[in-house]
């Protein structure tokens, strides 16, 4: 199930890698016309080459030392190139907030931020994340005061068993930051990539509504 895409391919959340072209299908689709698309590809390829120069040489199949930027700290792990970011976070670094649920990019339980954008850690190889800033649910909640998203989750009872909740927390945080003042309909679409089995969607939606309103008011 895991996609053996180019280590540098930039994939949007919910999408698997698109071969080795180094550009995101979502970014491509955003372009409205061939000229735009061509410039997107060109830029993406340039960025990809620039990135490649920074990347240390990786030997296929052999455990390799990787220095990853996780929650603002440099973390060193020695893993094979096929090891996912999710396994590194959970098994090597004991950052277990991101959960392993589907491993097929269908549930959002492993949502983290990569360079500030939501991504699925089960669909990323750790080696793909060299030179990128990874933020996990633990990183978003390292402050003394509870994050507004967490406060709203608590108030509206957006958790039951809680296994999907960290993924929802990260996805909601990213959504709220990008869409202050979003409507309920936008929230329902924006958080549609995360799955809950206990049925906490009502609380989650109410929490997200309050979060986007707070974000619009105070830029929280």
């Amino acid at each position, binding site marked *: *199930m895991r996609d053996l895409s180019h280590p540098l391919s930039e994939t949007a959340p919910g999408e698997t890698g698109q071969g080795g072209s180094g550009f995101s299908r979502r970014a491509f689709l955003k372009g409205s016309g061939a000229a735009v698309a061509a410039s997107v590809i060109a830029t993406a390829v340039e960025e990809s080459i620039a990135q490649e120069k920074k990347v240390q040489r990786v030997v296929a199949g052999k455990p390799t030392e990787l220095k990853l930027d996780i929650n603002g700290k440099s973390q060193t792990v020695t*893993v*094979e190139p096929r*090891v996912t970011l999710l*396994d590194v976070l*959970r*098994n090597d670094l*004991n*950052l*277990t*907030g*991101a*959960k*392993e*649920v*589907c*491993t*097929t990019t*269908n*549930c959002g*339980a492993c949502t983290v931020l990569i360079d500030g954008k939501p991504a699925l850690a089960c669909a990323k190889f750790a080696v793909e994340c060299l030179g990128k800033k990874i933020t*996990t*649910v*633990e990183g978003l*909640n390292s402050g003394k005061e*509870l994050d507004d*998203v*967490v406060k709203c*989750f*608590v*108030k509206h*009872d*957006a*958790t*039951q*068993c*809680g*296994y*999907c*909740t*960290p993924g929802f*927390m990260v996805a909601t945080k990213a959504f709220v930051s990008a869409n202050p003042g979003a409507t309920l*309909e936008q*929230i*329902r*679409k924006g*958080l*549609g*990539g*995360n*799955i*809950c*089995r*206990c*049925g*906490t*969607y*009502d*609380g989650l*939606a109410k929490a997200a509504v309050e979060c986007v309103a707070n974000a619009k008011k105070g830029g929280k």
Partner: protein
Amino acid sequence: MAERKFGWGKRSENVLIGKSIPRIDAAVKATGAAKYTADTNSKGTLFARLLSSKHAAAKLTAIDLEAVKNLPGVKAVHAFKEVGDEIRWEGELIAAVAAERAEQAEDAVKALEATAKFEVLEHFVDEADVARAAFANRTKGLGKANKGDVEEALKTAKAVHKGFYGIHTISHMCLEPHGSHCEWKGDDLDVHLSTQSVSGTPSQFAEPLGIDASNVTVTANYEGGGFGSKFQADEWGIAAAKMAKEAGRPVRLMLDRATELKIGGTRPSGFIDVTVAADADGKVVAWDSIHWGTAGVGGGGVDLGQMPYPFDFPNVSKAQVGISCNTGPNRAWRAPPHPQLCAITQPALDDLAAKLKMDSYDFFMKNLVFTQHGKGEVYAEEMKIAAKEIDWKKKWHPRGKGAAGPVKQGLGMALHTWGGGPGACTCTLKIHPDGAVESFLGSQDIGTGTRTIICITMAETLGLPLEGVKVNLGSSKYPASAPSGGSITVGGVSGAHRRAAQTALWKLFDLVAAKYKVEADGLTAKDGNILNGKDKVCTWKQACALLGQMPLEVQGKGPEKDGLTSERVGGVQMVDLSVDTGTGLVRINKFVSVQDCGMIIDELTAKSQVLGGLIMGIAYALTEEQIMDNKTGRYINADLLNYKLPGIGDVGELVAIMYQPDSEYDRGVIGLGEPPVIAPGAAISNAVANAIGVRVPVLPLTPKRVLDALKGGQA
């Protein structure tokens, strides 16, 4: 001194009980700090992977465990099957490997798979086709029952309806899969187990491992969903413990997603051929049914006992046939087997109402006299409340006679019942001389809010703020408490804690009475103080200081017949939805649940149980099912891409109304986890029939089934 009796306080005087209080562990979960079994990473932990069968029926003829023992990182290998053993369903476990790293264990499983050989046997997985099953010699009669004279009643009936209905098998799909982390400390085994039964599982580990249950500690601080499927140590739990022993290292073994779906638990299917008849007044006079389905290789299915659900009609004839399928074994699924009973009973009744040209609401109201357990009057009240909320009288139209256009709107309803009496529970409540309060019990919070309602119970009883009490649960070393299943937890734990807290408080009152020269009978605990009438006698801390050096320790037990808890709820659900007749897609507009459940401890988490029930109900009504391929015997959608669950945008507006007259408060605490998940299948099916004018007979109501029914025309 007046007699001291256990009881709840006056409803109007409650400070915490019955209010909406956020669950105390919500922030721990939302920040990712909560550690589940799958998150357990003690030093040196090995990772296990499983080899499971791709065949639905086969005999293992060769496997070479030795071939993988020296592969990189491999530390232990376990065989579930020996050469010659039979495999009875796809996904059945053959072997497990524990290695330094997960990917090394995966490599070893692949290598092991290359050594495994099978003699493939004939399989049967078609749960819906009873004729085919009979031809394949896979059916077994599971009983029949008769009451009155169905034949005679049918002769004189005003309307007779014959129909076929069904509901497919689903999987529990726990987001945290089944599994454990096992670590030996000398002769003692520490197990972190994703379980609904902390107190019940140590002996399940001990016996096959040849140790005493006292050597086993089971811990479950958090559990990522069980829904009735996590009461056992399971063969893979024992395998983890054995591999941990062999390797001399801790082992974490969680089922992978596909295996979780195949063997982690399924809910039996149910299909029915039924004839049902009513008199001119719209009252049901006869029910005649035969139903079938599967619960796996063992046959089984949906229990005959409570058919037709939840009614006791004057003339009934019913029979059940079980089908043995080569599919993963069933496990209890939230409210077994009520959701299926409801989904194959109440659509038939609704079709009979349509035949009588009656409004479904009037038809169900008229037939409440036949509901079991004496809940008729409560159902009637609940129906009135639900109808008002969903605007039934204004929105209802005869079947298929809604507004013109390709998107059809419809209304449907169904009703349910459940016991929810209290389970066994023992807790130890400690009051420390500094005023700190904590309790210990071997129960578990499976996401229902158990921690929260225990703290509310203790804090309310002792007159303390929520932060002034602490609960310790999730360890088998604490006093034994029943498994969490069947809605028995809330009654069990709240009853035991109320008794413990009241007993402790009376002891404190005696000390305060002696010290401050007041009558113990007149004392109450409120807002952190001990009061005599309205006068403050001392603070809570001053009272506790009278204990001296040792804490006061009290045991609370249950269940008792002292009025703190009881059982038996009803509940009515009504749904307003739209069906796109071009695509077959069903969209929920509004879903209303009116639920009685005795005394509510925390309204917020109680409502969450109801809302969660509605959402799980929408899932099995519209999208989720185990799809078996007859040719290969495989579960072909065993992943989260093809096993369809609704997302946040797929559930519409949900309204949970708690039916709470004082008469409910006076019943004491009753469980609520199961009831709200029972009726959605029938309510949604009935609303779709109302919308499009034909019955879509089998759940889930996927676009294809809806379009097929529209093409077929007649109900």
